[in-house]
């Protein structure tokens, strides 16, 4: 349930890693729970494998915070599974994700400046 007035995106930072990963996974399109897990695993070379409990607890929080919504638009019927719920990133969710990405980039820049991280082209 998105609230009527949403707080500034920066107030939610830093995001829990699971939340950030879910937002990234949803950035390319609506997905159901298991698809999100697989997407994250694929993007991280299987380093991050969310458990079902962690996933749905994160999703519930993100719904409350207005980062995502459950969507009624279903894919073509043959691809759909009636049990599954599909989630979609909101405009606000995108803003929060961008803010988190900027925050991380800034951290990396600082690390590089102090020689703690390698500079890549």
């Amino acid at each position, binding site marked *: 349930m998105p609230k009527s007035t949403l707080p500034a995106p920066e107030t939610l930072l830093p995001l829990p890693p699971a939340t950030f990963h879910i937002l990234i996974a949803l950035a390319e399109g609506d997905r159901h729970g298991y698809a999100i897990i697989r997407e994250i695993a694929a993007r991280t070379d299987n380093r991050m494998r969310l458990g079902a*409990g962690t*996933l*749905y607890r994160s999703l519930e929080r993100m719904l409350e915070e207005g980062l995502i919504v459950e969507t009624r638009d279903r894919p073509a019927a043959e691809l759909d599974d009636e049990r599954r719920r599909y989630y979609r990133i909101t405009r606000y969710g995108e803003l929060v994700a961008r803010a988190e990405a900027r925050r991380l980039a800034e951290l990396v820049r600082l690390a590089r400046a102090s020689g703690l991280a390698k500079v890549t082209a």
Partner: protein
Amino acid sequence: MWLYRALLYLYPASWRAEYGAEMRAVFAARRRAAAGLPAVLALWIGALADAIATAPAVQWDILRQDLRYAFRALRRSPGFAVMAVGIAALGIGTTTAAYTMVDHVLIRPLPFAEPERLVGLWEEHPVTGCRTCDISPANYRDWKRMSTSFAAMGAYRNLLVNLTGQGEPESVEGASVEASMFPLLGIEPVIGRSFRAEDDRESAPATVILSYGLWQRRFAGDPGIIGRAIALDSKPHTVIGVMPEDFHFPSRTARLWTPLQLDASDYEDRTNTFLYAMGRLKPGVPVPQAAAEMRAVGSRLARAFPKELAGTSVTVMRLEDSVSPRAVLMLKVLLGAAFCVLVIACANLANLLLARALERGRELAVRTALGAGRERLVRQMLTESLLVALAGGALGVFLAHAALPLAVRLVPTYLPIAEVPPIDPRVLGFAAVITCSTGVVFGLFPALRAGRQQGLSQLQGGRSTAHHRQERVRSLLVITEIAGSVVLLVAFGLLVRALWRVEAVNPGFRAEHVLTLRTSLPMPRYERPDTRQHFYNRVLAQAASLPGVTAAAYTSFLPIAMGGGIWPVEIAGHPEDIARRRTASLRFVTPGFFRALGIPLLAGRDVAASDVHEAPFVAVVSQAFVARYWKGENPLGRHFDFGNHDRTVIGVVGDVRVRGLERTSEPQVYLSWQQPDDVSTWYAPKDLAVRTTADPVSLVAALRRIIHEADPDQPISDVMPLEEIVEADTASRRVQLDVLGAFAAMAFLLAAVGIHGLLQFAVSARTAEIGIRVALGAQRGDIIGMTLGDGLRLTAAGVAVGALAAYGASRLLESALAGVKPNDPSTFAAACGVAVVMAVAGSLLPALRALRVDPTTAIRAE
């Protein structure tokens, strides 16, 4: 798959309903993708870890949500919140206070090392019914020698000394203890040393150990006190130690300890009993085994010394078990009454919540319609009631803490424990358990009810049969409240009657208009009678000359204030009296004592100033003494052996309840103070009684001045009107009544509120019906009768149940009733009458409200 399904039960039901299917689908997909045993195993371990990590978090999320919601809901209706928290606080507070007392006195082990191995030892004299009598030194010495069950044994005697020197002279209680005593208890001084065996020798230098309290109060906690001398009865004693703060021995009034120094003469007479003893059992020796051994030791001694000890035995008992049955009963009654209040408070709260659930019916229905499952609603309601209970619990513990000092009279003074029980983790744990169960008990029922009402009827605004079911349940709760308060009222009434009966007992003297005080004459300064004579003559003569004073006299001990002081009687022709322990209470008095106390002189004369040591030894005896030895004969001029001398009866006086209003006393013998027992100065008169025509308290300043002029070092203690001594005898009864009365009043109030709330609600629910009745021509009387009738029907049911329960409960009280019958009809009638009055009072407002119903509005609303 069933295993994973089971795992999901770690999550709240509402969560399972929302995400269970999805989570199972995810797991099934992964299970299909997992190939080979290691992969499957890894999948399971991952799932388990995931559930263990997230399930509590989800539970916590919901709890937080519910708490937020409950806070908001309570803030929206502050009246309800205050009332509910207050009622919970009453119930929990009373129960916590009562439990604290019971725990303190009866449950908690004594504050000594390995208390389960500690026992008290006493002489047992079956002929007099005394199970816990003092011990003679010779018997104690033989017990120690002849027994094998004990790792150690220690003896002590009570001590009363005058502490002079720094500041006001002061009379201080304590004990003379054997050197083995403190090690036996397992307690060390906080500073300085304990007594050693050589301190017990008669020739040893005089030493003293102070209590922490006395050290702080009198010597400002100065650690330099060790090695300094303080004056006890004018004799210097070197302070060698200070005991810990929570050390109370043998009772909580003890302030200092000296070594127990016995001399050869103390061992001569086996009927000269003044010691108390404790033993530490050897590891593994059970109390009954030690008791059996000591009984055998006792009968061997009785055979060896038939003249003094025939028929006597030895009692071995854990100290906890020495709490009098009366004190135990009082505490149990307190606890029972507190639980009664708690039950009533719970019923009241349940009722409040039910009414609130009805009022909130629409809100709950909306939540249900929005998809909140039954479990969520129940959980939400329970959170709210637990929140109320927790707030009430916190307030209740605070109330209990504040109220405890009022109940200290219920802690027996003879136990080695603090006066005011501390509120410690155990008690807080108890309060927490009571609080949570209270919250669940009063919250669960309304919550389940609310959970069941998911029907649309609430949304439609109509009333359903569920409504009537609710009313029945609420009626039952009110009946419970009335029944509970009837039980408390009956118990209270019976104990009030018992108190009246005890107070109506004639003590044998007239207590009004008499001031009493104690001047414990320090020995050895006043050891010789002529030094005492100077003091008595001067004080009594000046006291008698005060305006309004009609008599003034000294006695060894005032009645009731001191019950002991018992000596064996020997009379020619009654040789068996020693073995039968036929004894009498001994008091040395100055002339005019009977006039001062208002004890009637029935025959002969009072002791006189001329009854000096050189004159024939005389005695004034009480009626019961005459009845025992010379029934129907003239006792004047008869002889008997008492107090180490042959005495001649010169007068007969009325009997006095020396041991208090509720106990039988030995017959009394009064002797001239100038003809003492020649053995101890313990009986030297020290209690002053002055009869006046005015308010006795007005004499205090003048008497203090007179005594100070006679001896500036003489402490004055226990200044009080004689009436107060008599009142103190019934003080524990009165405290118990105060407490029970307060409980009954609370129960009464809660029940009245319960009736009021129920009827108020019923009236507003039946507004339409009432409107129609009025429209059809019902009279005002009919409407009032209808509402009052409802209240009275509930009351009748509650009173009937309550009277039955009270009948059962009052039989348990019987031994505390001083002869009042437990089924005393007038008490039952009064309690039931009060309950009816309460019901009518509670129904009155709702009835008036019913009267004001305007038929047209009421019917239109429908």
